[in-house]
């Protein structure tokens, strides 16, 4: 957990805050009560919550900035955030960016994992997945897909699987904000929600010609 806190600090420190300030948000949420609102939010939690729970309400510079602009930052600010996020991407040790599509297929369907609290925390051993179907259409046979993100049906069929596409796909899952600041898509790699290896499996699920994403 320490390492995650450290990561937040690095991100915060590396932002050239002065240049962000030149693009003052027009209508930041909360208006003049924003500071108070932050305190009210923080005061809503039990004082005896474990520390590793409370880390989850901390914001890095990307989160904070996206909030200020209601997820729609001016291009200049967006570019800075994208640059910042690009620098966080890490790769598997063996350098292989496309793994086993069957593993990726499982991860894409799992929406559980990572729930904390007293009311309905995950039972021990609950698998943590990518929950891709919550937002994206993927394999045709799964009818229960969401539309928050674009359809990724035939993702590989449309794009081929050149090295460039493989890398782009890996990078996008690892840190979506490296390409589009304040996108709705989580930064799966940055938060260690998925391991680099798990990300390679999802890359394969998207790109492998044998994967149900590409083969109806």
């Amino acid at each position, binding site marked *: 957990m320490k390492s995650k806190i450290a990561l937040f600090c690095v991100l915060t420190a590396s932002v050239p805050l002065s240049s962000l300030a030149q693009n003052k948000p027009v209508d930041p949420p909360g208006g003049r009560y924003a500071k108070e609102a932050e305190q009210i939010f923080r005061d809503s939690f039990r004082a005896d919550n474990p520390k590793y729970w409370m880390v989850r309400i901390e914001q890095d510079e990307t989160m904070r900035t996206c909030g200020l602009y209601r997820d729609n930052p001016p291009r200049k600010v967006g570019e800075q955030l994208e640059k910042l996020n690009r620098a966080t991407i890490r790769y598997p040790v063996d350098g292989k960016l496309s793994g086993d599509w069957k593993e990726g297929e499982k991860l894409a*369907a*799992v*929406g*559980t*994992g990572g*729930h904390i609290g007293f009311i309905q925390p*995950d039972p021990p051993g*609950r698998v943590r*997945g990518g*929950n891709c*179907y*919550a937002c994206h259409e993927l394999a045709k046979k799964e*009818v*229960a897909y969401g539309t928050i993100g674009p359809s990724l049906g035939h993702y590989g069929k449309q794009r081929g699987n050149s090295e460039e596409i493989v890398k782009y796909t890996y990078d996008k899952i690892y840190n979506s904000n490296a390409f589009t600041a304040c996108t709705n898509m989580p930064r799966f790699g940055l938060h260690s929600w998925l391991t680099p290896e798990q990300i390679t499996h999802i890359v394969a699920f998207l790109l492998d010609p044998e994967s149900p994403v590409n083969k109806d």
Partner: protein
Amino acid sequence: MNNQRRTVLKSGSGAALLGLLASAGIITPGMALADWNKAAFDAKSMADTLKALGAGTPTDSKDVQVTGPDIAENGAVVPVGVSSTLPNVTMVAILIEKNPNALAATFTLPEGTEANVQTRVKMGQTSNVYALVKSDGKFFMATKEIKVTLGGCGG
């Protein structure tokens, strides 16, 4: 809407009295019924369930229908019904092939009650659902697949 709710409330207070009678053993719910068919409800497979219901190998019939939507937004509550145009239907049952115990419910239909019953069942996963009907002493069956979808945020 409000009127309806008030009616319910009234019937509720009437029920308190009946409840008292019931707990005093004066009237027994379901006293006109045979004992709960444990063997049939405990059976796991379709075949064992049909055997325990004394239905043997029912004939597939176009005159029997599993009613309700083909897709369930959640497996905990799946609206399912049985309807039939066959004559003298005295019993209907709902079976779910992939549930731990296939039999969900059986209904006894006295003369004058239509072969058209609806309820809501739990389904662990997408499965074939069967409607079993006893008409003129013979058993008939129909089936349809009901898809149980994953929903919401996930978990």
